[in-house]
């Protein structure tokens, strides 16, 4: 396993070198990213802590509600982690660019399997830390627990990560074997669709509480020394692999009798079984599948696969040089399973967030203007966050990535500013088509007034266009034409500036949206000028950012060099 460790450690060496060389600018970027993640975790802690405090204020049903929240939260994290693992894993296990090289070295398939497992785990497990640690801290704090609890909770978190990792490996190998004769794009899309569909069905069946469920959760009876509500919840979730871990965490926090001997044993057995299955069945499937799929890297393609794809005239749908370049961007995204998977995953998270708005029991709260204003503001901020995430990963690097094809693009008679405007239009249109219906569906759950819906739609359009303009402009102001990795581009100083600019703007728009709702309900007038005032403020701010970004881009293009 020395070879596997050496290959894994090469990822860490870059960071070690950075620390050793003390490159001020890069260290500052890393420092600010760490600070940003720290702030996100603090904010999560505050939200969890406040939510648990409100639950505890409810008195008797607090325990059952806490368990229900823990079970649901665990399932949500498990589902996201497993889908993320499979989407990423189908690429890292089978399509990584260094696979042909590694296959030509004395590295065995078993070693390659564990190397890919570790790489995929590292890429997809960070949400456990970002989400899990604030949740555990909030739980311990709400139930006034001592240091011992945090130690036990940390062990449970690690076991949870092992469970998700083992399940992810196994499902990735099953999907790889099942779809090995399909094109990578089709395989990843099919696997994602099956997993999302399957999990959506199971979550809908087990996690979303009905009115009857609430009656049982609030049931005060304690037959045989254990609250009926806890029994009901344990029975409800016992089939989910996350159940033993959630109930164990609950029992540890509340020092209650939740769980059974079997569930306590399952805390250790399930992660162990998942890893064992991954290491035996998963490894075996990998050894069978990879050699055939790896042939697809060569010229001939795998037997039965279709290497040929692009036939005929290009562009097919758009026209002119700028249209051709925009279509090239979209075709490139559509034909890259890895990129498509990442874009789909961001959209999936937005769908998941919107679905929560629909399933959460908030109907009774929606007659309070302050609550509606807060939820709508939160919705705008959430949509803005997803737009920023997409912009940072796909729009911001798109300028620097042109450096690879600079020899044909910049040596051709194409006006670069025209290309900038076309990218602004195309990315805005694509994002509006994808994000618009999802976000509007969420807004429809919160508000019904045509005026407020119109204001929300306008704010959504402003968020989209402004985010794309900011991402493109910052990408153009600080390009790195030598870098070919979009993720590394997104985490450089330009990416950091993009995050700060976009999230700051999103926060202001969220606040303006909140004020619009408050004034709408407060004035009850035929002509709600105040709503127009706040939305107008958002229009002016957005227009200023877009105009500033466009002007800066125009100036930059005049002295742009492909260095």
């Amino acid at each position, binding site marked *: 396993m020395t070879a596997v460790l050496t290959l894994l450690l090469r990822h860490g060496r870059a960071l070690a070198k950075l620390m050793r060389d003390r490159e001020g600018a890069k260290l500052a970027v890393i420092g600010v990213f760490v600070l940003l993640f720290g702030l996100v975790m603090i904010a999560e802690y505050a939200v969890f802590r406040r939510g648990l405090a409100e639950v505890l204020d409810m008195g008797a049903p607090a325990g059952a509600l806490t368990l229900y929240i823990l079970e649901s939260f665990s399932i949500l994290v498990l589902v996201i982690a497993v889908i993320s693992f499979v989407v990423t894993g189908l690429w890292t296990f089978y399509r990584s660019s260094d696979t042909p090289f590694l296959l030509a070295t004395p590295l065995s398939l078993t070693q390659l399997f564990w190397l890919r497992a570790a790489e995929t785990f590292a890429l997809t497990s960070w949400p456990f830390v970002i989400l899990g640690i604030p949740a555990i801290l909030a739980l311990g704090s709400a139930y006034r627990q001592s240091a011992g609890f945090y130690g036990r909770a940390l062990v449970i978190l690690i076991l949870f990560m092992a469970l998700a990792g083992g399940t992810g490996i196994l499902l990735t190998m099953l999907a790889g074997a099942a779809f090995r004769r399909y094109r990578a794009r089709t395989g990843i899309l099919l696997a994602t669709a099956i997993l999302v569909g399957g999990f959506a069905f199971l979550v809908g069946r087990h996690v979303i509480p009905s009115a009857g469920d609430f009656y049982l959760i609030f049931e005060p009876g304690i037959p045989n020394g254990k609250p009926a509500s806890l029994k009901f919840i344990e029975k409800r979730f016992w089939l989910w692999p996350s159940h033993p871990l959630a109930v164990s965490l609950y029992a540890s926090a509340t020092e209650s009798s939740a769980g059974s001997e079997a569930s306590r044993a399952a805390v250790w057995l399930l992660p162990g079984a998942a890893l064992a299955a991954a290491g035996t069945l998963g490894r075996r499937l990998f050894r069978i599948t990879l050699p055939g799929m790896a042939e697809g890297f060569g*010229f001939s393609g795998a037997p039965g696969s279709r290497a040929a794809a692009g036939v005929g005239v290009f562009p097919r749908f758009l026209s*002119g*040089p700028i249209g*051709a*370049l925009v279509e090239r961007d979209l075709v*490139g995204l559509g034909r890259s399973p890895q990129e498509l998977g990442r874009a789909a995953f961001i959209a999936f998270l937005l769908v998941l967030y919107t679905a929560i708005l629909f399933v959460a029991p908030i109907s009774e709260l929606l007659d309070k203007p302050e609550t509606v204003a807060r939820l709508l503001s939160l919705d705008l901020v959430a949509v803005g966050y997803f737009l920023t995430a997409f912009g940072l990963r796909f729009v911001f690097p798109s300028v620097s990535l042109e450096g690879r094809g600079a020899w*044909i693009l910049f040596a*051709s*008679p194409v006006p670069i500013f025209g290309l900038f405007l076309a990218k602004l239009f195309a990315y805005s249109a694509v994002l509006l088509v994808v994000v618009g219906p999802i976000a509007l569906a969420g807004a429809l759950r919160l508000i019904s007034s045509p005026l407020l819906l119109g204001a929300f739609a306008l704010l959504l359009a402003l968020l989209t266009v402004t985010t794309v303009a900011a991402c493109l402009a910052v990408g153009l102001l600080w390009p790195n034409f030598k870098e070919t990795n979009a993720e590394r581009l997104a985490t450089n100083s330009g990416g950091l500036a993009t995050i700060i600019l976009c999230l700051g703007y999103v926060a202001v728009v969220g606040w303006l949206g909140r004020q619009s709702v408050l004034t709408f309900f407060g004035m009850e007038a035929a002509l709600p000028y105040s709503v127009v005032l706040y939305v107008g403020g958002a229009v002016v701010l957005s227009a200023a950012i877009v105009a500033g970004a466009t002007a800066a881009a125009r100036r930059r293009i005049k002295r742009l060099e492909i260095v």
Partner: protein
Amino acid sequence: MPPADADPRLRLDQLSKQFGGRPAVEDLSLEVGRGEMYGLIGPNGSGKTTTVKMITGLYQPTAGRVLIDGIDLRAHPEQAKRLLGYIPDEPFIYEKMSGREFLHLAGELFGVAVPERTRRIEELLDLYTLGAIADIYVENYSRGNRQKFAILASLLHSPRLLIVDEPIVGLDPESAIKTRDLLKAFAESGGGALICTHSLSFAEQVCHRVGLLKEGRLILEGDLPTLRGLAGLPNASLEALYLRFTDRHAP
């Protein structure tokens, strides 16, 4: 501004480029005439690639002008680039496109109409017998095949000036010979070509004149007999002349 008949295909007029105050190219003036192939040679770091990037619009000159068929690249970049074909030394081609799609994209960028470029693409594919792989994604191509598609893309719009950076790196011998013949035919039809290369035997075979760049300056230029005369080596090869003029293992 229409090109005047008397204008050379390429004129570099006191061209200079500095990076952070350090000169990479200094006061470079040269001309490539109609029907002429001009070889720009020199050691690594002599400024060849910087020169090529200034001619193709990837770098902005610190001083001086680039004129393509008499059109100033800085003043009229789109007009000037329309006349230019560029073959880079590292031909990146969009990996998720097929070779044929890429050629169509290049044609669209240079404003070649669909029927014309469809006909031209078929002709050009036949040159290197690339028809069998033209509809496969570029990510499956070898380096040599990518280079061939880059060469074809540069010729698709019938340019008047070709800028060629290491034209035969990665090509098999048969394709290298075809490329040589292709460049010769291009020059015979009235086009001009600036060829940067370390392959001195190739430059000797195809170039009418050669310029030697050293530390960003053009230290001499001329046809082979002139260079032999300057060196006092009447039968010397270009390789021997290069070593003499760069003071490296001079015979």
